[in-house]
């Protein structure tokens, strides 16, 4: 099975570039150049130097002994939370800023939900001395204040988006509108494997370093490069795409992507796109998205701002359709419980997004001999308010006996 994007930008029936003509030239420039740049020796050297010496890669692969014994199996943690800026997002922004520079762009725009991608973009803009504008839904500006302050200190302009429901979907619309209005000097660093071709492919390639490292790290530690399972959370799907990429054609490795069910699939407050969505077009891509019968895009909900997206990247729509990846979902509460369990067993406070990946561990019966890799896409500093809130609400004893 071929899981790569085809010449026209499709994964099977999903993908493409459903964009207004006003954006055609910007995207064409990127489409015509991205593969050439990614394969350029000079680019490769600069990218890998920055990943290593700036972002701190390779990120460790850690055997989680106590969590493994709790679940009766072998769990390895891929530590994307230890990257500079605290999440996998930096892998993408370093790559894209180097591309932007090679395309002669001087102004960078980005959308952000939780603020992790905004921070990762503001960071590389500071590093390269480029102007940075981050669009963020007004609601997210209010609920992710620490990241807003980080972006500002990094010199970025944070534009609160008042349109629509004032969250990630609307921030993405606004970034696209900015790009339409600034076709010459601006590069749009999109934060996940979403949007029109070539973004899904570009971001997948830049995040694929995660699975590239898992392969040799696992081989080094266990003698085998292939785990039985890889588990990652999905919002737009970039950390999952990166964690799966080098294993996609190896069907023996089972892949699980975890969506946010929010308050429950049937609660009306959920972000589980694969369950609740239907094929359609969002942000220039033909994929699966949450919408009503009239084709109006609906507002998702999750306790985790980074999973709060009504669509999913077209590669995932294809992986879902072909059955290569199994898409599961966990609720806010299950994610919170899993976050406390990981923290108290391993001393690692995960991002709320990443906690979703851990919450499926309890829903499967793994064998003692099996090897599971779970991607910790980011760290939990930004989520301390939600965690504290949960601690206050829960009965003390309950948290202690997880």
């Amino acid at each position, binding site marked *: 099975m071929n899981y790569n994007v085809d010449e026209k930008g499709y994964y099977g029936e999903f993908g*493409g*570039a*459903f*964009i*207004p*003509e*006003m954006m*055609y*030239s*910007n995207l064409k420039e990127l489409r015509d150049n991205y593969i050439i740049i990614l394969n350029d020796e000079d680019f490769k050297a600069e990218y890998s130097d920055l990943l290593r010496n700036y972002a701190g890669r390779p990120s460790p692969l850690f055997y989680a002994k106590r969590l493994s014994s709790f679940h009766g199996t072998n769990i390895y943690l891929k530590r994307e939370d230890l990257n500079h800026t605290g999440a996998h997002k930096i892998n993408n922004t370093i790559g894209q800023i180097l591309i932007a520079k090679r395309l002669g762009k001087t102004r960078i725009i980005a959308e952000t939900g939780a603020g992790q991608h905004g921070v990762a973009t503001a960071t590389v803009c500071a590093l390269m001395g480029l102007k940075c504008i981050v669009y963020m839904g007004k609601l997210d500006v209010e609920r992710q204040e620490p990241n807003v302050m980080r972006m500002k200190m990094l010199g970025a302009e944070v534009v609160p988006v008042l*349109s*629509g429901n004032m969250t990630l*979907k*609307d921030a993405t*619309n606004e970034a*696209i*509108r900015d790009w*339409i*209005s*600034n*076709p010459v000097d601006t590069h749009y660093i999109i934060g996940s494997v979403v949007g029109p071709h070539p973004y899904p492919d570009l971001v997948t390639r830049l995040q694929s370093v995660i699975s590239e490292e898992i392969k040799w790290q696992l081989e080094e530690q266990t003698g085998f490069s292939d785990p039985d399972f890889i588990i990652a959370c999905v919002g737009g799907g970039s950390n999952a795409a990166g964690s799966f990429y080098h294993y996609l054609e190896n069907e023996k490795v089972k892949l699980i992507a975890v969506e946010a069910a929010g308050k429950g699939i049937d609660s009306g407050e959920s972000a589980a796109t694969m369950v609740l969505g*239907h*094929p*359609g*077009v*969002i*942000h*220039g891509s033909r994929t699966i998205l949450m*919408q009503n*019968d*009239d*084709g*109006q*895009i*609906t507002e998702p909900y999750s306790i985790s701002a980074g999973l709060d997206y009504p669509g999913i990247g077209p590669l995932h729509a294809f992986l879902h359709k072909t059955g290569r990846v199994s898409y599961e979902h966990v609720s806010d509460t299950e994610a919170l419980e899993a976050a406390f369990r990981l923290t108290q067993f391993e001393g690692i406070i995960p991002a709320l997004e990443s906690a979703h990946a851990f919450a499926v561990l309890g829903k499967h019966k793994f064998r003692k001999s099996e090897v599971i890799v779970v991607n910790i896409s980011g760290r939990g500093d930004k989520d301390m308010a939600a965690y504290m809130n949960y601690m206050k609400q829960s009965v003390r004893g309950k948290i202690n006996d997880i």
Partner: protein
Amino acid sequence: MNRINELFEKKSGNVLSIYFTAGYPTINSTIEILKTLVSAGTDMIEIGVPFSDPLADGPVIQKSNLSALKNGMNLKLLFSQLQNIRREINIPLLIMSYINPILQFGMEEFCGKCEKTGIDGVILPDLPPEVYMEEYSALFQSHHLNNILLISPQTTAERIREIDKLSTGFVYVVSSSSTTGVKNGFSKEQLEYFLRVRNMKLHNPGLIGFGISDHETYELACKYSNGAIIGSTFIKMLDNDPGRIDRIRDFISSIRT
């Protein structure tokens, strides 16, 4: 013959097309706005089907879309409001929207309904020419529906030629690299772009849209093309107030003077 083509056969200049959002200012204003626009002397009307995420639109049309959705507008309702429209109105009518609401309605059913209702053309800014050609052009033709494609200042001459080949009825000349909305007049670069397009002598007529806000910009646009399209300024005039429908006649004559 399609009414759009007929219009341009009779009238090669000063064509005025007005965009409005169906369901705005109220759910039932569609027919009243259409009739008033016709009696005020509008040549062509683009009926907007509201979408939650109108990527190519600026704040004014974003807001009219959201209001219309809140009022309960959808394609099914619009077609039922329009079912007898051809007994009363003869000018070309177009539907302008985004692809997702149409896809969910069903492209075939949509084209069938358009034909039955007497819709002459469709403008979907996020349906790229290549996809239109491969997937939908045969369907549109079988229902005698024109598909109007856009060009922008960034569109290369070669691509303008291709778009001109695929577009039917007219070519929508987007006046600037921007979303819909009002700017302050036209810059020198914009006028050069209009001239460049005019000198290409496209086989389709061209209408300039985006940023036409008053008599002056309308007249200037008409100098360089077959006419102009007004959207945001018209929506702004309505100002979410059904009482303002009375002002449509004055508005149109202020543009034409």
